[in-house]
């Protein structure tokens, strides 16, 4: 067995490393989470900010990911 027992999923790793690039949408999402915290109606959600954040991350990760894969 190779020495590399601990396999790190490259996608997770790149998503972590792309976080600094997408701070703005992340802060927007966190602000939204705080805003809807007290809501009990069940109608409020942060899908928009969530999508914006993950879209930013995806755009950052996509060009780099396949270079790390076989």
């Amino acid at each position, binding site marked *: 067995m*190779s020495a*590399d027992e601990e*396999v*790190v*999923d*490259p*996608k*997770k790793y790149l998503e972590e490393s792309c976080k600094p690039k997408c701070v703005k949408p992340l802060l927007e*999402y966190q602000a*939204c*989470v705080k805003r*809807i*915290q007290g*809501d009990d109606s*069940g109608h*409020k*959600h*942060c*899908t*928009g*900010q*969530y*999508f914006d954040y*993950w*879209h930013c991350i*995806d*755009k950052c*990760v*996509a*060009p780099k*990911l*396949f270079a*790390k*894969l*076989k």
Partner: protein
Amino acid sequence: MKDTCHQIPKQLVIRREKAQDCVVEKLGSISFTLAHRPKRVIQSSCVKQPLCHRGTTIFSRFSISSSIVSVADLVVPFPGETLSLRCGLIWCEALIKMVGGGVIQQILRRKLHSPSLATPVRSWFSSKTAHVDTGSSGVRAFALLGAGVTGLLSFSTVASADEAEHGLACPDYPWPHDGILSSYDHASIRRGHQVYQQVCASCHSMSLISYRDLVGVAYTEEEAKAMAAEIEVVDGPNDEGEMFTRPGKLSDRLPQPYANESAARFANGGAYPPDLSLITKARHNGQNYVFALLTGYRDPPAGISIREGLHYNPYFPGGAIAMPKMLNDEAVEYEDGVPATEAQMGKDVVSFLSWAAEPEMEERKLMGFKWIFLLSLALLQAAYYRRLKWSVLKSRKLVLDVVN
């Protein structure tokens, strides 16, 4: 040529008409000259425009604020734009130009009180457009402006529709087989088939692929035969009229996990795991979508709760998918020793699915390259030959003798 281009300037038209008048007067004259061969004008400098654009150039010619380049041409095509949206934008702009032209003309008339300026402007306008009377033009201008504004608003609101309904847009990954002359990564197809067999085949059928299709693509003939022999296939009827089971052959299709759709739905909480033979062609941006979906299982955003039995996936339209996360690190042990991370398995299985949906891709690209090259040569040859034959007519001289 009824498909007329509206760009023939009036001056040349008049000249042609004059020349034609002279020809009519001089019927019977053997030789006739055209002062300037309007060859360049007749041969359209007209660019092929969409219908809506051609119509609106008529409007824009009559407005004071018209310019050669329409503003709509400057709007860069954006993702999600359709022809109808662009036509809508062009028409709205034409309406606004018309309205703007009317408004500017009114302002000009009021500000410059000299009748000498107003009259030629007004006469020019009245000869061309219909709505010049000051009384109702204000109401009409407002109505047209309202139409333009609603047109603009309609195309701006399309982009902000409910995001979860369409799912998060998947990014474009740089697939190794994307280039114009790029083939599949066959090692990846082989690994992808292994992932399919061990992870996906328990729920998803691939009923259009046979074992023989894999020969030469992912496995040798012996390997494929051995794989086929592992499954049991119902065959028959035999001489006694009974169905029997036998080990699989190369000609058999990949096995189906469920007997029919109802059984599949019953086993999966009402959801039908779709057949994967054509899935990358059956979904928009299929390759990127399937990869994003398989590797995109995440916690739902704040405020979203998914019911029991479903799982959150932002790429799935609606967000709630029946399939749980199937690709986990080390779920499969690859024969060639490649570390089986989630992303690696996702890439391999999508390569396999791409091949399954488009096995002809490599041959198609080779053929495409070959025939585009040959047809380009044929085009050059045809162009030369056409110009050669037409040179006789194009270098002809016509003399129009004008009688005074």
